């Protein structure tokens, strides 16, 4: 090959490839700063009297985004199909399902790019993040003649407000609980399910005698167990109402050593085993092979995930049950943590907010829609929905237990900033260094504290706290 020809080709391609590395994160600065504009200015009739119908002859095209496992996708699509069938010629809803991975990345990109769905599923922490003044989503008070808010407890509904504006509808309460694969325990001859951490240790000895790689409890993120422990130890959530930190370096150090002791005893999943069998990022456990095969015969997870966790075990003939909350030694609080589960919002850019509200009314309050949606999103907060599901016999088994557990558990509600990825990343990364022997507990705790404090300061400044 000729020198100049080859050289030119190589230089050109190398430059293009290298330049391509720059293009993923450029982001559109031009779109910045517009998030707060235009709330309520998206075409909703101001008189509030019109039925949720598009202008004459026009079919309202609405998109609906959500995440979940296959069971949730199937139920939601059935509800969409039924809604569309009942609104032929006036409203067409298109589903936009996704898995549990990269939730916020996808949401943020679509939100910033102005391509968010008309009706979107919004994680609770995102409400303050994307709508700190209530202007990031459509003002739902504009559609209160379409959506029946009276089905919700007023206090609970307030958790969907920001800046005094009802920006989202919370679906229900998510409570962190322990769920046990009872069938796996039966196979080991353990008929009395553990209620204390000492009993978990004893059960772990039985399980590991049969399979040394068994860990009794796995969780989507290691931080859940740590905060569970620290709430019981201090009686406080991780962050105060003004977003300040409630835990000290010593608290984090205690949580690290407490978890590692239990991981060494094969009660909680070790970081090494998690990386080997699950991955290095937080993820739903419901589809994990080791969980399904009984290698993890228990999960520490939100009640919102229990239907999926139970469903995958049922396919193998195993039964998932809600376990009693174990209490740490010297606890000043004997409960767990809770948060509003996923919420629903209407895009402030939607051309059809009233039709979107009608769709929300169908899936959240209407008996037909509620039946089809089922219990795949965990506990419902709508009184009408709960009555429908109970009458339809859908609240049974593990889901019924989760309802009962949610109704009685002592809880501390999470701060809206709790799930910020920086906190989880800092905790998991430094716990990992501690478990792998790269850091002492003291240094790992200090690193967690420092990273958390830095992010808290940033968020406080952003949210004006």
């Amino acid at each position: 090959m000729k020198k100049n020809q080859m050289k030119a080709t190589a230089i050109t391609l190398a430059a293009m490839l290298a330049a391509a590395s720059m293009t993923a994160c450029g982001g559109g600065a031009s779109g910045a700063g517009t998030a707060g504009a235009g709330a309520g200015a998206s075409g909703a009739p101001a008189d509030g009297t019109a039925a949720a119908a598009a202008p004459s002859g026009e079919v309202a095209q609405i998109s609906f985004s959500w995440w979940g496992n296959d069971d949730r996708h199937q139920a939601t699509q059935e509800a969409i199909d039924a809604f569309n069938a009942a609104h032929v010629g006036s409203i067409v809803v298109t589903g936009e399902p996704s898995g549990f991975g990269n939730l916020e990345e996808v949401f943020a990109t679509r939100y910033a790019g102005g391509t968010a769905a008309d009706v979107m599923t919004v994680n609770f922490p995102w409400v303050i993040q994307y709508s700190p003044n209530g202007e990031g989503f459509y003002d739902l008070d504009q559609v209160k003649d379409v959506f029946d808010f009276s089905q919700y407890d007023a206090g609970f509904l307030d958790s969907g407000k920001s800046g005094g504006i009802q920006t989202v509808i919370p679906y229900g309460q998510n409570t962190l609980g322990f769920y046990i694969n009872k069938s796996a325990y039966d196979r080991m001859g353990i008929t009395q399910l553990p209620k204390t951490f000492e009993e978990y240790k004893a059960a772990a000895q039985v399980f590991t005698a049969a399979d040394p790689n068994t860990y009794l409890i796995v969780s989507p993120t290691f931080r859940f167990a740590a905060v569970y422990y620290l709430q019981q130890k201090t009686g406080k959530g991780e962050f105060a109402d003004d977003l300040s930190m409630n835990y000290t370096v010593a608290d984090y150090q205690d949580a690290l050593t407490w978890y590692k002791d239990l991981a060494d005893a094969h009660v909680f999943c070790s970081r090494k085993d998690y990386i080997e069998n699950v991955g290095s990022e937080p993820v739903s456990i419901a589809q994990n092979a080791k969980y399904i095969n009984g290698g993890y015969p228990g999960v520490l997870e939100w009640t919102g995930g229990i239907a999926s966790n139970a469903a995958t075990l049922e396919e193998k003939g195993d039964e998932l049950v809600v376990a009693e909350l174990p209490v740490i030694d010297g606890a000043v609080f004997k409960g767990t943590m809770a948060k509003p589960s996923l919420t629903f919002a209407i895009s402030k850019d939607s051309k059809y907010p009233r039709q979107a509200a009608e769709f929300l009314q169908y899936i959240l309050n209407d008996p037909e829609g509620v039946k089809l949606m089922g219990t795949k999103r965990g506990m419902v907060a709508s009184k009408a929905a709960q009555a429908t599901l109970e009458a339809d016999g859908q609240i049974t088994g593990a889901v019924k237990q989760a309802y009962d557990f949610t109704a009685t558990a002592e809880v501390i509600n999470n701060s809206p900033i709790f799930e910020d990825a920086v906190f989880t990343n800092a905790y998991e990364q430094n716990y990992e260094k501690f478990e792998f022997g790269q850091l002492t507990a003291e240094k790992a705790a200090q690193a967690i504290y420092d990273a958390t404090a830095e992010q808290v300061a940033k968020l406080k400044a952003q949210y004006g706290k």
Partner: protein
Amino acid sequence: MKNGKIGLLYIAPWLIGMVLLTIYPFVNALFISFTDYNLVRAPSFIGFANYVKLFKDTDFLGTLANTLKYTVFTVPLQLAFALFIAFILNFKLKAISFYRTAYYVPSLLGGNVAVAVLWRFLFQQDGFINRFIGIFGLGPVSWFSTPGGAMAVIVALKVWQFGSAMLIFLAALKDVPGELYEAASVDGSTKVRTFFTITIPLITPTIFFNLVMQLVNAFQEFNGPYLVTGKGPLQSTYLTSMFIYDNAFKFFNMGYASAASWVLFVIIVAVTLVLFATQDRWVFYSDSKK
């Protein structure tokens, strides 16, 4: 219409895409790298703060070291493997087209989700690889939860995608004049000596081309490690491209991510320039005056 204008018309789709999807974000990323920007709020100018922070950030420096290690392992291995297979496929074999296609398939699949699932199955504790080495009394190896094992898995995945380099090598091998081999044979040269004294020198321009391409690719590798090992134990497979992605789309530090992108870009350019500076010593072009 003049030929020049028709030519421009033909390349217009590519040109528009290049300007909008590459050059604009490329320049925009430079601007954003000097700001604090989280996608939702307007960027605020903070000067060189992102760059200063980057060079104190042990996570970032760690990803640079990992990326360098990954590049050093994958590029030579991939090139050697691609050349070896191309050399074999250059013989007159039956069903040669089938073999060429079959060896190219991994490059088409790349690091997609299906391949990631397959790779995890292969390397899991009771997977095929551990069972295979078990036959020889070895293992099992915890591939994903040991730093060395996790790096080996993603290196193997990259090397497996040798198809495009192989095809380019194959074309180069076919360009080597047959009379040179005949002359070498008449002079009693062995196959190995012929390969190293005739074949290799004549295809050095192609080796150089593949080296530059694979090097630039390896520095930017994302899909394979992201899907198969994630950060890996102790962040051992956390590459710079993943650091950029996390900061941009997980932590929403777009300014910081853009600064990291630019640092990576400068490193890639520097390494490429060094390679170009060395080529006079080992690359032999047909029109070279030496």
